[in-house]
């Protein structure tokens, strides 16, 4: 008998290969130690095996075990107890929030004052059915459909110098995802002045369709990280297109992930 973990629960199995212990069935997917397998492999003590029924949403414990297997238990544990605030839920913020939710970041705080309007659909994580809804509520609804087991709180408010501290104090990382450069500078300055120990991941320059390779992440000053090409602002003739906006959102989400996991270099 070998003692292994099956969907997060310890189980004694007979047979020293995956398929001898768990004969493959149609409509299931097998994951051995975080890796999806389609052929038989030897198994040993303490291996983590996930047998996922296709097309069925698993209960919380099983989903947690699967996420843990996917991201490694250490990473999953850290992310689950992390708290990230996202300021601005447009092309950057909505996509970053979805990415953080998919990773299983335990607590998300989403802030925006605006409603979803038709021109947002070119790059932001919203659907026609969300038009007219506050972006905060539209995004919360989506995240509940991706991972209902993370805590999402929202605030439908315009961020100003006067409410930055009250809104964002106590978060591990703050993500600046505004559109307007004056708002970007206001938030970054307020956080650096009033919450000097808090890390802030910001963005500058992701409009148009210049090379995606020009978008990068830089560490600036003490706790500021800026993603973008640093020069291509939205302007007449240079619109915000989904690919570069998503590349930049990916840079920001990855930097947030790295910071949560203790990696401070871009």
């Amino acid at each position, binding site marked *: 008998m070998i003692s292994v973990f099956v969907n997060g629960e310890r189980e004694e199995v007979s047979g020293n290969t995956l398929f001898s212990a768990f004969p493959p069935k149609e409509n299931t997917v097998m994951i051995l130690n975080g890796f999806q397998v389609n052929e038989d492999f030897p198994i040993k003590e303490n291996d983590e095996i996930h047998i996922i029924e296709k097309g069925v949403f698993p209960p919380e414990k099983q989903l947690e075990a699967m996420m843990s297997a996917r991201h490694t238990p250490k990473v999953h544990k850290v992310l689950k107890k992390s708290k990230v605030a996202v300021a601005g839920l447009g092309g950057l*913020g909505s996509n970053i929030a979805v990415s953080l939710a998919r990773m299983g970041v335990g607590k998300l705080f989403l802030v925006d004052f605006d409603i979803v309007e038709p021109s947002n659909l070119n790059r932001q994580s919203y659907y026609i059915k969300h038009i007219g809804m506050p972006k905060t509520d539209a995004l919360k609804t989506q995240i509940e459909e991706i991972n209902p087991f993370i805590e999402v709180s929202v605030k439908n408010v315009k961020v100003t110098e006067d409410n930055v501290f009250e809104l964002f104090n106590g978060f591990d990382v703050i993500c600046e995802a505004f559109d307007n*450069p004056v708002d970007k*500078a206001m938030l970054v300055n307020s956080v650096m*002045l009033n919450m000097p120990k808090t890390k802030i991941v*910001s963005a500058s320059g992701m409009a148009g369709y210049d090379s995606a390779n020009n978008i990068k992440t830089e560490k600036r*000053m003490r706790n500021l990280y800026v993603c973008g090409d640093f020069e291509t602002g*939205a302007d007449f003739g240079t619109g915000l297109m989904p690919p570069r906006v998503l590349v930049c959102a990916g840079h920001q989400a990855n930097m947030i992930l790295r910071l949560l996991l203790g990696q401070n270099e871009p």
Partner: protein
Amino acid sequence: MKLNGKHFKLSEPVSILNFIKDKNYNADRVAVEVNGKIVPKTEFEKTTLKDDDEVEIVCFVGGG
């Protein structure tokens, strides 16, 4: 002085506000750090930059 990690020759002391204007930056769209300290926008006019300062300026452009 050192500007964003590179040597920069400052011919005479100048306020942050005028320095930013000379560089064609907008004071509402920047974050400025002098010798490791963030300088709030309200202090740009009365803070003078000297040639031995280490200055870091981040300028934001629109889009998100």
